């Protein structure tokens, strides 16, 4: 039973503090997107939790905000 249910398990939910960090620096989504070479829609999707960034993008974010990745992204638990 567990085998058949495995594919139905949802991926680990991830939270992020991107919106707060961006607001603290008075950056718009477009500003942030330009610095990361991604689209504004990608930034919006990350902030609203609809999209989880890849590892390289997560590292870029961490470098940009000068914070460890764990302080920007965390799982729900």
């Amino acid at each position, binding site marked *: 039973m567990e085998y058949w249910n495995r594919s139905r398990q949802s991926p680990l939910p991830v939270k992020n503090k991107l919106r707060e960090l961006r607001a603290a620096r008075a950056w718009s989504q477009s500003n942030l997107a330009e610095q990361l070479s991604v689209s504004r*829609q990608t930034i919006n*999707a990350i902030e609203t939790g*609809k*999209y989880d960034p890849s590892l390289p*993008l997560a590292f870029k974010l961490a470098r940009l905000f000068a914070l460890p990745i764990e302080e920007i992204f965390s799982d729900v638990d």
Partner: protein
Amino acid sequence: MTKEYIADTEPLSERDLKIKKDLVATAWLGATTVTYLVTLFLVQDNPNWAPLLGVGMALLPLLPGIMYLRKLWGSFQSLDEMQRRIQLEAWSFAMAGTVVVTTVLNVLNAHGLGWENYPHGLEIGGVFITMFMLWSIGTAVAKARYR
């Protein structure tokens, strides 16, 4: 005077460059469509053409079509990771949907339940149109999921 004119021209902004690339791609798509329609009528109106000429005319739309596909491929290279995922989902949906639609239509035709104007099932042009429509729908649905 020519050198001064060139030196005064500012390089295009990123947004303008993207618009220019989109316009060029659309122009090639338009050329493909026009060439396809013209050669379609020419081939239908001239059934007595030599086979080689007929085949050549029928394949002529491929030339601007390949140029359009090159531009489309190039545009995919400039997409960010989320946009690439959206396109992956859209193209997967389009391919699977086209297989389903063409299979259903051909099976209906084989059992005499098809459309009398298309006794041989969905022609290649219809397959492309179906695939493009499904890709458009797939893109819209995938984008909405990430909004």
